[in-house]
């Protein structure tokens, strides 16, 4: 499997499934237009990451360090850290929420999962991780089938894409930023580039890589599309305005057309698997990026003793993620959606770094961006910053947006 497809499988994690479902449940088909536009941006940004990895054979963190120095690296990686911690919390929230559907207390499920995931890295057995990814990608197909079986009004779908009916409220904008943030996450760009280098993709075989990235982006957003459609068709009531969604369990309705009585169980299993996987990959990717950018681990490190920074960061990420999920009054659903809002708000920072790097002829030689690519990425940055600003302003001064 190519890096693009693998990364895309990881795209629909706890935050993803929940955000798309909530978006569909609350606003019906009115956020689909954003999803379609953002798929184009996703493909472009992923391709950029892959291209940078193939040409320079370095990770994104490394590139930032070499070009911008220690201070900027600290800034970029702090931003990444906040986004990653938010997402890690969301993954553990997903574990808590999914197993609570089976009446397993989060005080059991979360610690057990945290310890299990921690051991996974210490043992270092990743062949299983790859195989689980493969199985997971098949599970997502259930949403596609369910979405079709729900018999959505395809005319309405088409109309909503061109002319969404919802009013622009702060809540709508929040979900919009969340949808963008969960589709293009900062951590994925670092992860994809590192994977491209790991898999030995270089400039010579880069052509095949492009296809892999495009297919991956298309497939993942196809699934996202159907998650939204399935949720909208089953949960949204046209004309009644946003439906309040309080518990993750309600989102299982989206799978009822396919699984009827088993919808809740199916949803829970899917959410659990996705969350568990991401809860391992995310802390790992974070630890990697930090040690790569700051050169902590000097030489070949083996055990805990010899790689304190790496294992320290990894462990802290898991502890913070799991710990937050165990706090009293922790609302898993809110956590999952809000984490993606954080990702969306912080994404522009990473995009700007990427743009500066990829247009640098000294680093990329002849493989710099075309003008179109640059334009699209800049528009995305401006849009995200704009939406985030509006959200912040209207939170402080409610009533500015009717």
């Amino acid at each position, binding site marked *: 499997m190519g890096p693009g497809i*693998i990364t895309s499988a990881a795209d629909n994690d706890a935050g993803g499934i929940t955000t798309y479902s909530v978006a569909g449940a609350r606003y019906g088909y009115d956020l689909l237009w954003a999803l379609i536009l953002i798929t184009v941006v996703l493909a472009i940004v992923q391709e950029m990451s892959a291209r940078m990895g193939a040409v320079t054979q370095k990770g994104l963190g490394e590139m930032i*360090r070499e070009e911008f120095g220690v201070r900027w690296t600290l800034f970029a990686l702090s931003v990444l850290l906040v986004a990653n911690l938010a997402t890690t919390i969301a993954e553990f929230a997903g574990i808590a929420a999914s197993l609570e559907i089976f009446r397993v207390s989060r005080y059991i499920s979360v610690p057990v999962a945290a310890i299990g995931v921690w051991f996974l890295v210490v043992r270092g057995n990743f062949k299983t991780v790859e195989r689980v990814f493969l199985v997971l990608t098949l599970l997502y197909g259930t949403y596609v089938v369910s979405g079709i079986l729900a018999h959505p009004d395809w005319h309405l779908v088409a109309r909503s894409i061109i002319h969404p009916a919802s009013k622009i409220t702060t809540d709508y904008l929040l979900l919009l930023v969340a949808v963008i943030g969960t589709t293009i996450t900062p951590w994925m760009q670092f992860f994809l580039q590192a994977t491209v280098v790991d898999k030995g993709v270089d400039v010579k075989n880069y052509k095949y890589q492009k296809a892999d990235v495009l297919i991956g982006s298309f497939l993942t957003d196809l699934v996202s599309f159907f998650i939204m459609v399935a949720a909208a068709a089953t949960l949204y009531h046209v004309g009644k305005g946003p439906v309040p969604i309080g518990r993750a369990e309600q989102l299982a309705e989206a799978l009822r057309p396919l699984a009827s009585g088993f919808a809740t169980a199916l949803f829970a299993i899917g959410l659990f698997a996705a969350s568990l996987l991401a809860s391992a990959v995310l802390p*790992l990717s974070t630890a990697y990026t930090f040690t790569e950018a700051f050169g902590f*681990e000097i*030489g*070949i490190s083996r055990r805990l003793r010899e790689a304190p920074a790496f294992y320290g960061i990894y462990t802290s990420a898991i502890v913070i993620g799991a710990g937050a999920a165990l706090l009293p009054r922790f609302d898993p659903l809110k956590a999952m959606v809000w984490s993606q809002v954080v990702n969306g708000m912080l994404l522009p920072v990473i995009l700007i770094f990427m743009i500066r790097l990829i247009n640098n002829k000294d680093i990329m030689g002849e*493989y710099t961006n075309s003008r179109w690519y640059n334009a699209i990425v800049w528009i995305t940055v401006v849009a995200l910053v704009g939406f985030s600003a509006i959200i912040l302003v209207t939170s402080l001064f409610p009533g500015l947006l009717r």
Partner: protein
Amino acid sequence: MFLSEMIGKPVIDPGGEQMGVLGDLVVTPGAQFPPVTAVVVTVGRQETIVVPWRQARVDYGGLKLSAARADVKTYEIRDDDLLLKRDVLDKQIVDVHDYRVVRVNDVRLELSDKRLFLVGVDTGTRGLLRRIGLEKPVDWLARRLRWRLRTHIIAWNDVETFERSEGRIRLRVPLDKLASLHPADIAKIVDELDPAQRQEMFESLDVETAAETLAETDPAVQVSIVESLDEERAADILEEMEPDEAADVLGDLPAERREEILSEMEAEEAEDVKELLEYHDETAGGLMTTEFIAISPDMTAEGVINHLREVGPDAETIYYVYVLDSAERLVGVISLRDLIVAQPQAKVAKFMVEQVIHVHLDASIQDIAQTMEDYDLLALPIVDDENRMQGIVTVDDALEQILPEDWRRRIPRVWSK
């Protein structure tokens, strides 16, 4: 003094006006501690002026120029000059002293007799903190807590740098610092470089060192290195390697590439390797080397020792000498000890060991290891169905195979290669 403390500081012209800020320092390599030969001054937003060192002077909080802007005799930066901020700061370098690849956090310079010299690179946490501006506070804190924030500076003559121009990586010449290390240590460094740097290294090292290093490199990395070289270079290096080692590397390549390289190799060497390629990896045939010493039973001890002087240098091991009859069948073995202890005129047939411990071509690695352990052997002869000698497996190769994967593990990469 450190580079990070100098970059960005004001550059004052003779009239006392600030002309710009310090952008970079130019160093001309060659000496053990090379001198700074020019200063890159950034004027305004984009413009730079390169001022030769003799027209500059380090002063408190900045640089003073002795010539006005118009009188600056612009220094022409040469191809092999090093720009400290552009080429060294934040980049990865090879620490030849400790055989590893590290990132430069800061650069150490020393002022001596009005000249500035490049002394070393700071790869430690202190350097990182200094760049952020937190060195003094953390130091203060460390002292309170009775820690010590160590300084980790690598002397410049232990450093090997890479440079990049237009996306290509080039190793700075000369490579002699690296080449003087033991190949196993160079291999450790190679394992940590990125593919472009590795390719550059294998193109620049002399063939013998390259061959020895390649043999010691991690198998997965070996393949990627050979794939990145052109056929002739790859063939040259593989010819220098022991045939079993070359066979190991070639065996992991795609068939087409393997053929390309084999056809570039010298016919005799290629033949040896092709023979070994026929055997399955995990059997005696796949592990053995054909570079053993064989003699006939009617040679004398003295004769054998003379023969050893001739063929010794190229053989895998000279501790055991195998006695073969005219049909190449294994009929006996003598050890180096036996040879030295025997009377010079004694015929080999008289003092050789006739019950030679051996295994068959398709013996498993477990059989080999067990046999070597049982009989305390350093090398084990491998024979075919007709008892003809085909090769030997030495104890280091056997050890490599049976060492638990665990022991050689590193920080797990996310994806298995």
